[in-house]
């Protein structure tokens, strides 16, 4: 029978059948539509991200490796040990450990501190061991190795302990309040840590007119992410209601507002100064083999008394005797001397706060350890800073330290992750494992983002295919059941079994095509609406994540990847065909003479 003849005979008979068929078409198309929508949406995202390949770290396959807490019983065990140390300490000083004490904030903070020390010690050992064991395994395919500087993290911590590092810059009470607000809002302390960046990578991110040399004012070139930069800037970016072009323009304004500007940090705290110097020394050690450039100098800040404004130091009587007094040399005091470190914003680094929920995708792009906004090029060396005796730094990769690797391609990166798969996203996190994770590359980030949904998508696809199969089976089964007589008539008129099969295959396929068409149209409409609403915000995220402030790229959340669309359609058609086999086989096997009998 000719194909068209089959279609002519496959036409729906009556109203109730038509309504029934339409309902099943609509229901299946809703499910199919989700698949189509997914394909359109994902290719839209990928296509948009593709346009940013030339910016930021997108040409690189950076990977971070860091050890995880939790060896030897994890936090709970460490905390238990910390408690008994704290209790012993108190008892040795004749202080009775009461509930009042153990519930006090001071006690709890001390226990947390001890717990971290305990864990850090373990961590350092784990990392050192693993690094030794794995370096040979990991290194060969890695193009560069970068290390972040743990001591700088610690210096940031020390600054945090200082009550008001930025307040010294305030000219008057109003500015002080503003600064205080900024400090509070920006979560500034948490973000203040530094990473070292390979020279070649730093060149990628250097803005026009900027260099990696230390400036005449002693300012160290630094790359800052938008999020941090925007704290300094008068330009505020509210993406809502702005077009892509307007958002791009805002980013350019922001960029012009901050680029080349110097940021000063004043350290009035001995511990902070100490750590800072040690970290710079570590920086130097790392950079030693590379070309040396202008040295960093640390200038004196203005004396505190001049700038403390209305703040007065507490008297000895006012200072409550601490529950756990520190050894004298480590005692936290408000330092009489303040040092300033000058940073010059020479470029804008991709960065996104992993804990910012509104930024779900790009939290994957830039998961830096301990939230690292500041990146100092490793080419910045310092011969002239006065090196103090290093107590326990030992250029060690213990503490919070982690290692970055830079691969030439995704395959190498993947192989690396797989070979050392001891706790990446994919591997889970057993205590003592290394945490291995890609960062910096938008495409890889999207891939990982979709990986999270892979199982969900697979389940959805399987359900949809099953639904396509069973709907077809049910509806064709029902139709064939109701068409026994019709089939018998056709056969009496000379239809072969194959012709009957063709008619119902045609019927099933017509329904499937209708569902596919409807699904596709609905998916396109949904994707268009979504794209209309969110493409700009997405584009803004891409700019932020890649530092592509000079670009004028538009994004869309709808993309037509023919391969995907055809694959989905093909799978659903195949499922429908599978669903046709059984009812058709049953419908054409009946004994003809019985079916034509008048009732």
């Amino acid at each position, binding site marked *: *029978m*000719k194909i068209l*003849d089959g279609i*002519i*005979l496959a*036409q*729906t*008979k*009556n109203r109730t059948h038509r309504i029934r068929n339409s309902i099943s078409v609509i229901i299946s198309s809703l499910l199919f539509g989700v698949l189509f929508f997914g394909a359109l949406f994902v290719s839209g995202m990928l296509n948009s991200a593709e346009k940013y390949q030339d910016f930021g770290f997108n040409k690189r396959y950076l990977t971070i490796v860091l050890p995880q807490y939790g060896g030897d019983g994890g936090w709970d065990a460490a905390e238990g040990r910390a408690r008994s140390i704290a209790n012993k300490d108190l008892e040795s000083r004749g202080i009775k450990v009461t509930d009042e004490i153990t519930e006090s904030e001071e006690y709890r903070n001390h226990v947390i501190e001890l717990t971290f020390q305990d864990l850090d010690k373990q961590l350092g050992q784990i990392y050192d061991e693993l690094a030794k064991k794995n370096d040979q395994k990991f290194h060969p395919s890695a193009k560069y190795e970068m290390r972040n500087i743990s001591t700088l993290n610690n210096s940031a911590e020390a600054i945090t302990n200082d009550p008001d590092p930025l307040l010294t810059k305030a000219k008057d009470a109003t500015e002080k309040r503003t600064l205080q607000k900024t400090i509070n809002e920006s979560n500034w302390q948490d973000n203040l840590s530094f990473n070292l960046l390979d020279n070649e990578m730093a060149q990628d991110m250097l803005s026009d007119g900027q260099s990696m040399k230390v400036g005449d004012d002693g300012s160290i070139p630094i790359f800052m992410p938008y999020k941090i930069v925007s704290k300094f800037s008068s330009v505020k970016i509210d993406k809502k209601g702005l077009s892509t072009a307007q958002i791009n323009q805002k980013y350019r304004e922001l960029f012009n507002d901050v680029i080349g500007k110097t940021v000063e940090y004043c350290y009035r705290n001995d511990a902070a100064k100490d750590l800072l110097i040690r970290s710079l020394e570590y920086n130097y050690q790392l950079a030693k083999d590379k070309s040396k450039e202008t040295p960093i100098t640390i200038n004196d800040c203005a004396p505190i008394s001049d700038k403390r404004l209305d703040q007065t130091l507490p008297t000895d009587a006012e200072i409550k005797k601490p529950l756990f007094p520190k050894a004298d040399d480590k005692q936290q005091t408000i330092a009489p001397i303040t040092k300033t470190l000058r940073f010059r914003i020479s470029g804008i680094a991709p960065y996104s706060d992993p804990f910012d929920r509104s930024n779900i995708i790009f939290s994957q792009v830039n998961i830096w350890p301990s939230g690292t906004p500041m990146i100092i090029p490793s080419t910045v060396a310092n011969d002239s800073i006065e090196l103090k005796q290093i107590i326990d730094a030992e250029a060690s990769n213990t503490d919070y330290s982690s290692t970055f690797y830079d691969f030439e391609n995704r395959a190498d990166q993947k192989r690396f992750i797989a070979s050392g798969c001891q706790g990446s996203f994919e591997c889970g996190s057993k205590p003592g494992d290394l945490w291995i994770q890609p960062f910096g590359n938008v495409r890889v980030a999207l891939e990982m983002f979709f990986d999270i949904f892979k199982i969900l998508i697979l389940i959805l696809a399987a359900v949809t295919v099953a639904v396509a199969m069973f709907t077809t089976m049910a509806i064709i089964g029902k139709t064939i059941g109701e068409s026994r*007589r*019709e089939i018998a*008539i*056709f*056969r*009496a*008129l*000379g*239809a*072969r*079994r194959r*012709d009957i099969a063709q008619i119902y295959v045609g019927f099933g396929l017509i329904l499937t095509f209708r569902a596919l068409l409807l699904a596709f149209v609905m998916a396109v409409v949904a994707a268009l609406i979504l794209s209309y609403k969110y493409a700009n915000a997405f584009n803004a995220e891409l700019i932020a994540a890649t530092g592509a402030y000079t670009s004028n790229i538009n994004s869309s959340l709808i993309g037509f990847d023919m391969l995907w669309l055809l694959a989905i359609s093909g799978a659903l058609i195949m499922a429908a065909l599978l669903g046709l086999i059984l009812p058709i086989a049953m419908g054409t096997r009946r*004994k*003809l*003479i*019985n079916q*034509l*009998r*008048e009732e």
Partner: protein
Amino acid sequence: MQKDNSDQSDPKIRQIISQEYNGNTQQLIDELRSYLRSLNEKSEQPAIEPARDFSNQPIIVKVNNVSYDYHITRKNIVHALKNVSLEIHQGEIVALMGASGSGKSTLMSLIGGLDRPNNGTITVNDQDIGKLSNGQLTKYRNQTVGFVFQFFYLQPFLNLRRNVEVPLMFGRSKRKDRHEPIDRSISAVNLTDRASHKPKELSGGQMQRAAIARAIVNRPKLLLADEPTGNLDSKSGADMMNIFSEIREQFGTTVLIVTHDQNIAGKADRIIYMKDGEITHENP
């Protein structure tokens, strides 16, 4: 292949058919009809002249000792046909009568190739139905016989032309070759002006004529009509017999009709009576 039967027909009819065709089919049909009517009036007979002698015509249907059982359950077996034998000559119009349940439909179905007999042989147009493969049997149903049912069984969503086209679809004929047989069939049942109507826009009689047009579109040797008038008023029923007769004249088709109506059966060349799965007698 279909034999040209025109040399068996009346010379007057041949003359009407062979006159220059002016494009008006209806006119041609009207002429033929009025001629046939005049023939009837002359002999003071209804449309068909019964008792024509067909014994010198070749035998087209030969049923020999055929039995057929329906297995309702393993123990409950209905012996629908018991050692039935009959012969039908080419061009004959034969009526099959008998009480309900006497096996008429079963016999028709077997002759029509809907199943094979359990015992005995059925030979139609020199083909032994019992020996045909499934594929050959399907082709046989499509080409050699035509079915007309009591309840018409037209496709409600197709217009008359399409309904008539259905057997051609199964016969895998080329689309452009279909117009001629469709037109011819529709005109043979006088429905040319209704060709684009859907079944529900037709009267009962017209629907049955449409079903007949469908049955003859492949020019079958044998037309099988199981109670074709059962659902029609008596005027339409009588009309149906004229149509069969005209088809027989036009195409030389042999017709086997099941009917309960003595008047209708009376217009056939021969009546075969059945009872309890057996042929009891014939008339004449």
